[in-house]
C-alpha cells in the first residue's frame, strides 16, 4: 500500500540503530543488521561492514544528522569514525533476528553441555551425551531465557528433566573427618544430607567417605565448620563420581 515514494529518497532498509545518550543529547548511528554484536565480540574487524554510513544522526529514521557542535561538545572530537566507534562500543542496540537466534542457540547448547557434564544416569553411573540432553530439553519444551545465566538455567533444567527421564546430578565424593566428641551428634544431622556412605571408620575420630549431592556441599561445609569449631575436616575426593573407561558389552 505504498502511497508516494519520491524517487530520490534513499530508503535505509536493513538497518539496525545503535543509540547513545551523551551530554543530554541522543545520538544514533545506522548499522547493518546482525553485525553489531560481532563487532563488539571482535569477530568483525572491518568498520565498513558494520556501519551503513559514517555519519552520526540524531534520528536515523528521520535522517536527521547530528550537528557538529553537539558532537564536539559531547565527544570532545569531531572525528566521525572515532565517535561511531564509541557509540558502537557503548550504545544500546537492537538485537537483530539472527543475532538473537544464534545467541539463544549458543545458550541452549551451553545449558545442555553443563547439564551433561553435571549429571549421570543413576543406573549406569555414566554421563548422558549432550545430544541426548538437547533432545530431552526439546521434549520438555524448555525455552531459554536470555537474561539468566546458563548455569542457573542448567540447574533448573536438571530439575525438570528428572520428571521425564532417569537423571541425577553426579555425586561428589567427600571425606569427612569428625572429632570423636561431636561425631555422633553431627552424624545425625548429616545423615539427611549424605546420599551414600561408602566407608565409615571410627577410632579416634570418625572418618567417613561418602557421596553427596553437589548442591548440599555448602550446607555440609557450613555445618561441619560451625559445629566442630573448625576441628572437623572436609575433603573433596572427586568432584564427579562417574564410571571411567570404556565398557564393552
Amino acid at each position, binding site marked *: 500500500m505504498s502511497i508516494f515514494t519520491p524517487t530520490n529518497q534513499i530508503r535505509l532498509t536493513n538497518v539496525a540503530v545503535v543509540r547513545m545518550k551523551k551530554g543530554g543529547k541522543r545520538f544514533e548511528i545506522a548499522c547493518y543488521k546482525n553485525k553489531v554484536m560481532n563487532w563488539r565480540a571482535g569477530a568483525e574487524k572491518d568498520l565498513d561492514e558494520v556501519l551503513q554510513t559514517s555519519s552520526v544522526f540524531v534520528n536515523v529514521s528521520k535522517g536527521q544528522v547530528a550537528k557538529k557542535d553537539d558532537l564536539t561538545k559531547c565527544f570532545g572530537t569531531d572525528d566521525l569514525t572515532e565517535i561511531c566507534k564509541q557509540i558502537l562500543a557503548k550504545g544500546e542496540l537492537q538485537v537483530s533476528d539472527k543475532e538473537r537466534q544464534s545467541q539463544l542457540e549458543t545458550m541452549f547448547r551451553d*545449558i545442555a553441555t553443563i547439564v551433561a557434564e553435571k549429571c549421570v544416569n543413576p543406573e549406569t553411573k555414566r554421563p548422558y551425551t549432550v545430544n541426548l540432553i538437547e533432545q530431552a530439553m526439546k521434549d520438555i519444551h524448555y525455552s531459554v531465557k536470555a537474561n539468566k545465566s546458563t548455569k542457573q538455567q542448567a540447574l533448573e533444567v536438571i530439575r525438570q528433566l528428572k520428571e521425564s527421564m532417569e537423571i541425577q546430578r553426579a555425586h561428589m565424593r567427600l571425606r569427612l573427618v569428625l572429632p570423636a566428641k561431636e561425631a555422633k551428634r553431627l552424624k545425625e544431622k548429616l545423615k539427611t544430607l549424605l546420599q551414600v556412605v561408602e566407608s565409615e571408620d571410627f577410632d579416634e575420630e570418625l572418618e567417613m567417605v561418602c557421596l553427596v549431592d553437589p548442591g548440599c556441599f555448602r550446607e555440609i561445609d557450613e555445618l561441619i565448620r560451625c559445629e566442630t569449631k573448625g576441628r572437623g575436616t572436609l575433603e573433596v575426593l572427586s568432584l564427579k563420581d562417574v564410571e571411567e573407561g570404556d565398557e564393552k558389552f
Partner: protein
Amino acid sequence: MGHTSLDKIIALQRNPANIRNLCILAHVDHGKTTLADCLVASNGIISTRLAGKLRYLDSREDEQIRGITMKSSAISLHYRNDQDYLLNLIDSPGHIDFSSEVSTAVRLCDGAIIVVDAVEGVCPQTQAVLRQAWLENIRPVLVINKIDRLILELKLTSQEAYSHLQKILEQVNAVTGTLFTSKVMEERAEKEKKEEEVEEEEKESKILSGDQVYDWSAGLEEADDSQLYFSPDQGNVVFASAIDGWGFRPACRTRPLADFGFAIKSFHIQAVEQVKGKKQLFVQLVLDNIWSLYDAVVTRRDKEKVEKVIASLGVKVLARDSRHSDPKVLLSAICSQWLPLAQAVLSMVCEKLPSPIDMTAERVEKLMSVGPRRFDSLPEQTQELKRAFLQCSSGENDPLIIFVSKMFAVDTKTLPQNRPLTQEEIAQRRELARQRHADRMAADQTAAESRSQEGQPGLTLKDSQPEEEDQQTFVAFARVYSGVAKKGRRVFVLGPKYDPAQGLSMMPEGSSAWDRVPAVPHLSICSMDSLYLLMGRELEELDEVPVGNVLGIRGLEECVLKSATLSTSPACPPFIPLNFEATPILRVAIEPKHPSEMPKLVRGMRLLNQADPCAEVLIQETGEHVLVTAGEVHLQRCLDDLRKRFAKIEISASKPIIPFRETVVRPPKVDMVNEDLGKQHKVAIIHQVKEEASQGRPSDTLHVDHSGLVTLTTPNRLATVSVRAIPLPQEVTCLLESSTELIRTLEQVNMSLREGKSLDISPRTLEAIAGLKAQLESLLQGRKWRNAVEHIWAFGPRRYGPNILLNLVEGYQRPSLWQCLGRGDQSGEAGAQAAGMRDLDNSIVSGFQLATLSGPMCEEPLMGVCFSVERWDIQSAALPQHQDSLKEDSISHGALTDSRVEGSSETWTAGLCQARRRPQAASADCYGPVSGQLIAAMKEACRHAFQAQPQRLMAAIYTCEIMATAEVLGRVYGVLGKREGRVLHEEMKEGTDMFIIKAVLPVAESFGFADEIRKRTSGLASPQLVFSHWEVISSDPCWVPTTEEEYLHFGEKADSANQALKYMNAVRRRKGLYVEEKIVEHAEKQRTLGKNK
C-alpha cells in the same frame, strides 16, 4: 523328488560317510541364493517354478527387499544318487560387509561351492572367499553361473563363450595359485626361521651351515598342487544358469553326455558348417546345443523347432508353459528337465567334497592349536582327542566336541515347541492324552477329572508359552565334530583363552564331577536345552545329533557370547578364533529418540552384540553408546535389527564425538612461510588488537610477563601465584600416558601416607614406581628440567593424567611425590610459613586439576603440559597465627596428618580473622573461603599461562592398515591424502600381488573413510583402523599473519583453511561455547524488504 521327512533325515544323520557339509560362497550378486533355491527345490521344499525367484534362504524382510543375503543360513537336504546323501547346505552373503557371516559358515563346512558369474568373472569378494576357504582348509568346487547372460546379453557365439569361460577358469586358478604360493612361502620362511633358531641354539653350527644351501625353487616344486586347481577334467566345475535351472558337469560322462549325443543327432544344425580349423569338442558337443536351444526358444521363438527339440530330448513340457508369453518359462521348463542343475551340482558335491570322516589331520591340528602354540605342545589327552576327530564316530563314550560359530536370534514364537500345532499333531496328541487319561482313570479313579486335564495338550501348550510374547531366543549355529549331541546334556563351554593343560590339572579325575567343578578360568558349564535341525527359516526339534552335522542349539545364551567350543572333555582345546576378512571399523553413536528409553536401548544393544558376529558395541566414557560395524550396509542392518527386533524403539545414529587434546609447544623459530622469525619485526596490528581484547580485562589482578610467567592474585588480594606453562617432551607424555595405572596407585599410596597410615605396598609396585621415576629422570634432562622430577607436585587431570604440576616455589617444601620410595629420609620439619601453606596445598592441586581437565581452547583435556609454580605468596592475614599448632605438629605421629588437619582448621580461623577486620563481610570474606579462591585463582593462572604459550590442538590418530592390489594403489593414496592421512610405509606381500599399506589418519577424518575407500577401489582395498596415539596438529588454531612475509603470502584475513581452527570451532560449536565467527559474512548482501516495497 518329494519332500523328505524328518525321520529320513534323522536316519541319514547317523551315517557320517554320506554327509556333506558345504557352503555356497561368491561375490555379491553372482547367484548364490538362486543356486541354493534350485537345490532346495530339488528336495521339494519349494516348487521348481519358484526356484530362483523366491530366494527361500533369504528369510529376512530387508534381505528380500534389498535383494542381497545378509546372514548365513543352513538347510539340510537329501540327495539320492546311488546312495542316500545328507547335505547340510549353508548359504552365505556375498557383500563385503557381511564377510564375517561367511567366516562363520566356512568354519562349519568341509567343502564349499564357489560361484562365479560367467560375465563378471573373478571379483574382489571371489578372491576373498577363496582365501577364506583356503585358510580354513576346506575343499572348493566351482560353479560358473549365469551362462545364459553370455548368450542373451553379450550375444557371444559358442566359440567366444568357450574362450571366455576358459579365461574365467584361469582367473580362478590364478587366485588359488597365489594362495598356494603364499602359503608355501610362509611355511618356508617359518621353517627357515626355526632352522636359524636351532642353529643359534646349537653351537656346532659349522656342520650345519655347510649343508644349508638354500634352494629357492624347492619349496614350490615340492609342494603338490595338482589337486588344487579347478578343471572340468577333474569334474569339479559345473557350468550353470541357476536362474533357468540348468547346469552340467562336463566330466560326468554318464547322463548329460549321452543326452548330448542324442541331441547332436536330432537338432545339431550349424555346427558342421563352421568348421574353421578344428572346433573344440566341448564347444561342439555341449555349448552349441545350448546355444541353439536358446536361439530357438528365446531369440527366435521358433515354435516348430521347439517342438522338435522337446520331442527329441524326451522332455515333457506342460501346455501351460509352452503357451506362456514369457519364453523364459518355457526355457526353464525344458532345461530343468534336460540338464537339471541340482543333479549336476549335488552329484559333484557328493563326489568331490569330503565327508566329515575324511577330515584331514592337518585341518584338525590347525583348528585345535590356538595362537602360537603348536599342536604337539598340547597335553596328551588333548592330542588323543584328535583321534576322536578323525574317527568321527558317534559312540556314546566318544567325547563330544561342538563348535558354535555364531548365535542368531529367532522369535520365541517360531520355535518348534511354541509353534501352533498342525491338525495331525493335535490329533496325535489328543490320542496320546486320551490314552494317558484312560490309564490314569484306571489307576486312580478318585481324583480323575481335574488332574487328567493337565495331561491335555491344549493346556500344556498354553503353559509353555512364555509371558513375554515377542521375546528373542538365541540359537547357536554349530556343528558336531565328535560324539553325539543329546538334548539336555551338560557340556563345558570353553572360552577362547581356555588352556586345556590348566583345565586338566585343576579338574578332578574323571569328568563325572559336573557339580563341583573348580573355577577354571574361561570355562563354564551349560546344558543344551534343545537341539534343532536347521531348515532355512524353520527349525525342527531333534533329540540327538550325531557327529558331522550342523545343528542349532538353544540354551546357551548365558554362556556363549558369539562363538565358543563346547565339549564334554576338559582336555579339549578351544578352536582357533574365526578368521574375519573385514574387521568392524565404522563407528556411530546411537541414541534413543526419547531419552527415557535408554534402558531399552542398552538391552537391545546387548542382544545385538550377541546376535551379530561382527558388530561391536561399547559405552564410552563420555556416555556415548557406540556401535562399530563392518560397513554401511551392515550398519543399516544392525540399526534395523535394533529398531524392529531387539530394542523396539526409535533410535538415531550419528557421527560419534571426536576427542581432542590441548597442548602447548615451543615457540616456533620460523613463521608460516618458513622465514626466520628473529629477523623480522611483527606487523601484527590485528593480532595486537585481539590480544588486548582478550587479555585486557582483569588487569589489576593478572599480570603476564613476556616470558610467559603469569601472576595472578586472588580477589581478596591475599594470595598470589605465578605459573608458567612449559611443553613436556613427547616421550614424557607417552610415558605418563602409558603408566596411568601406576600413577594412580602412587597417588593412593601418597594419600594414605599423608594420613599417617602406613600402607603395605608390595615391593613390585615400589620397584615399578622407582622405575617410573628413573625413566622420567632420564627423559627430563637439560638445564630447564634440573631436579624437575624431584619437584613434581602432582599429575593431572584426575591426578593421573599426562600433565605435570611442578613445585618451583622457593622455600616451600612439601612431601615429595616419591616419598614412598625412601620413607626414612623425608624431612618432617618445615617452616611455619610452609606448614601453613601446606594446608592450602590441596587448593593449588585442585586448581591445577580443574585447569588440566578443560583447556581454554575448546574445553578439552590438556596433554603434555607442565605447569611450574614459581612463586606462591600468601599474606599473613590468610595465614594466621600458626604457632600454637606448631607444637602439636612436631609431636604427633606422622607429622603430616596432623598438620593437614590443623591446617584446614586454621583456614577457617583465618576467615574469622578477616571477618573481624572487615566487619562488613558477614561470616567470612565476601569472596568465599580462601581455599576456594585459591582454587579459582590457580585455575585461571594455569589457563592464562597456557594461553601465553603457542597453543596447539592434538588429534587422536588411527593407524590404518590397508590391503590393496596393485591396480588400486593410486586410489588408496588419493583417499588417504584427501583425508589428511599420511602413508608410513608400503610393502608387497610375498607371493601375492597384494600391497600392505600402513598409514596414519586423524580420527576426525575417519567417518565414512572405510566406505569411501571401498567405493573408490571397488572393494579391492580393505582398511583396518586401530587407535594409536595423539598427535599435535601443526597448525596454530589462533594463527593470524603477523609478519610481512605472511601478509604477502596469506593476505590480511588469512582465510585459507586452517585445519586446527576448523576442528576447534566444531568442538566449540558443539559445546555451545563462543565461536568467533560472523553471523553474516557480508552485511550489504542481506536483504530485508520493507513492507511498502
